[in-house]
C-alpha cells in the first residue's frame, strides 16, 4: 500500500544548521496496517509524515502508494487520497466557516469541486450521521462556526474530516498532544474507532509510549533520522514500555529516559 524506498532528506545542507532529518528510510505497509511511530524530539517523525503527504519532497528515494510512485506528485494532488490530522487543533479546520461548511469542504476531497452548493439536504443528513458517531453533540450544531469549538471538539471534527472520505492513507502527527488528558483519551478512542470502521492504512506519531503500544498492529522507533526499531505484527502484542526502553538502550547505548518529557 505504502512504500518508502531509501528516502533521505537534509535541511540546510552545507550550512552550520545542517540537519539530516531522514536517512535512508525504508518502510513497507500493507493495506489496513496501523503503524505507530515513536522517537525523541527531532528524530524526523514529522518530516517522515510530510514526505508521505507531499508537503516536503525527499532529496533522494521514492514514495510509492498503491504501486504508483507519488514522489513528485504535488501535495494538493496527493491529498485526494491522503487524510491528515495535525498536532495543533487550529490547523485542521477553517475557523471562520461553519461545521457543515468544513465538512462539505472535506467531502469534496476526492471529487472535482463544482459550482454546485457545497451543503445540501442530502449531505446535511450524511454529515449529521457521521457527527453523531463522535458522541459530542456536534450534529446539533451544524451551523456553528468552528472557531467557537473547544480544542477537543475541533480535533474530533478534524479527525472525521480527514477520514470520512475513506482515504488510502491516514497521517496523524501527535494529534492528541495538545489536549488535556481526558480529551486526549477521547480522541484516541475516536481514532481507534474510525480507523477500524473505514479500515484505513494509518501512520500515527505519538509521544505517548503506552498509546503507541495500545493502538495499531505495527510500531517503529525513530532516532536521528533513522528507523532504529521496526516491530512487526507478530511481535507487537508482546511489547511493553520496559522492553521498548531496553531496546533503545541496547541499540543506542544511551538512556531514552533522559527524554522523559517527550516519551512520557
Amino acid at each position, binding site marked *: 500500500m505504502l512504500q518508502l524506498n531509501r528516502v533521505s532528506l537534509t535541511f540546510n545542507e552545507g550550512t552550520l544548521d545542517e540537519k539530516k532529518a531522514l536517512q535512508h528510510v525504508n518502510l513497507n505497509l500493507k493495506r489496513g496496517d496501523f503503524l505507530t511511530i515513536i522517537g525523541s524530539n527531532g528524530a524526523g517523525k514529522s518530516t517522515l509524515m510530510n514526505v508521505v503527504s507531499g508537503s516536503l519532497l525527499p532529496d533522494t528515494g521514492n514514495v510509492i502508494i498503491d504501486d504508483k510512485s507519488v514522489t513528485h506528485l504535488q501535495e494538493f*494532488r496527493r491529498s485526494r487520497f491522503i487524510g491528515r490530522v495535525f498536532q495543533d487543533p487550529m490547523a485542521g479546520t477553517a475557523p471562520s466557516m461553519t461545521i457543515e461548511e468544513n465538512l462539505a469542504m472535506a467531502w469534496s476531497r476526492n471529487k472535482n469541486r463544482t459550482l454546485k452548493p457545497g451543503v445540501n439536504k442530502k449531505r446535511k443528513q450524511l454529515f449529521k450521521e457521521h457527527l453523531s458517531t463522535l458522541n459530542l453533540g456536534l450534529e446539533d450544531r451544524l451551523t456553528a462556526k468552528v472557531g467557537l469549538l473547544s480544542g477537543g471538539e475541533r480535533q474530533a471534527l478534524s479527525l472525521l474530516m480527514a477520514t470520512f472520505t475513506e482515504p488510502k492513507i491516514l497521517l496523524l502527527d501527535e494529534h492528541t498532544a495538545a489536549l488535556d488528558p481526558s480529551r486526549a483519551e477521547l480522541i484516541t478512542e475516536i481514532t481507534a474507532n474510525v480507523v477500524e470502521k473505514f479500515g484505513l492504512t494509518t501512520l500515527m506519531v505519538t509521544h505517548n509510549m503506552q498509546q503507541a503500544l495500545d493502538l495499531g498492529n505495527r510500531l517503529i522507533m525513530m532516532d536521528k533520522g533513522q528507523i532504529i526499531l521496526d516491530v512487526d505484527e507478530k511481535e507487537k502484542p508482546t511489547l511493553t514500555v520496559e522492553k521498548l526502553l531496553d531496546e533503545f538502550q541496547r541499540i543506542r547505548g544511551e538512556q531514552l529516559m533522559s527524554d522523559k518529557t517527550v516519551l512520557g
Partner: protein
Amino acid sequence: MFLSFFGAIESGLIYALMALGVFLSFRVLNFPDLTVDGSFVTGAAVAAVMIVNGSSPLMATVVAIVAGFVAGCFTGLLHTKGKINPLLSGILMMIALYSINLRIMGRSNIPLLNESTLFTSITSFWENLGLSTPFNQMLSFIGIQANPRTWAILFFALIITLIVKFLTDYFLKTEVGLALRATGDNQKMIRSFSANTDILIILGLGISNAFVAFSGALIAQHGGFADAGMGIGMIIIGLASVIIGEALFGTKTIARTTLAVVGGAIVYRIVVSLALRVDFLDTSDMKLITSVIVIAALIAPKVIESNRERRRRKRKRIELEQVLASEEGEKKNVAT
C-alpha cells in the same frame, strides 16, 4: 439636501460593486490586494475607449469586466508563482496598470458626454415609459419638492448590485467557493484537502478585480468620463465601505456581510456628501476626508470597546466595595 442624498445613494450603489471586490480579496481571501486602484481605472478606460469607438455600452462593459479579471489574475500569478508578498504584488500591478491604462486610453482623459452609455439607454427607456412620475408624486406627497433627474439610474444600479451580491453569496457557498474561503482561512489545511490554493488565489483575485473594473466601467458611464487618476485611493474607499458596513450591519453570515458591504458603500458616500456640505471643505479635500473616515472607522470600535471594559471594571469595583462595606458593617454589629 435631498438631491445630494439621492446622488450619494446612486453612486454608493455603483461603488458597492468595487467594495464587494475589496471584500473578496481582503476578507474572504485574506489578501490585501492593492491592484484595485489600477483595475478600477482599467474598467473605466476600456469601457470609455470602446464606447467612444462605437461599441455598444453593454459590450464595452463586459470587456471591461474581463480586463479587470485578467489584471487580478496577474496579481495572483505574481504572488503564487513569483512568490512575491501580497502587498507588493498588488502595488506592482497597480503601478503597471497606470501605464497600461494610459495606453488603453491614449490620453489621460476621455469624455463620454455625448455618447450613449448603459445609463443613457436605460434612462431614455425608463422615461419613455414614464416610470419616474409615481416616485416623484410620492416625494411631493411626503413633502419633498426637489425631483431627481431620473429614477432609472438608482433602480438600475440597485438591481445590478443586488444581482452581483446574490451571485457572490451563492458562489461562496459552492464547493469551489468553500475552498476559496478556506484558502483565506487556513491554507495549510485546505491543501491537505486537495485544493490547489494557487489557482484559487488567482481565481479569487480575478473575480475581485472583475467586480472592481465593473464598478469603474459604470462610474465612467455615470460620471461621463474616464480619467487616468480616477482610481487614486480607491482601495481605501473600498476598505472604508467594508469596515463601516461590517461595523454597522454585522457579519453573522455571508449574505449578511455582503449586504453590510453594500450598505457600507452607500453610507460612505452619504458621509462624504455631508462632509462636502461643510463650508470650508471642497472636492479637493475628498482624499483627506476619506482617510479621516477610515481612521475613525478603524479606531472607533476599539475605543468603544475599551470604554465599555473600563465601565465594566468600575462597576465591579463598586460592587466589591459595597459587599466589603456591608460585611464590615455586619462585623461591627456582631461586635456590639
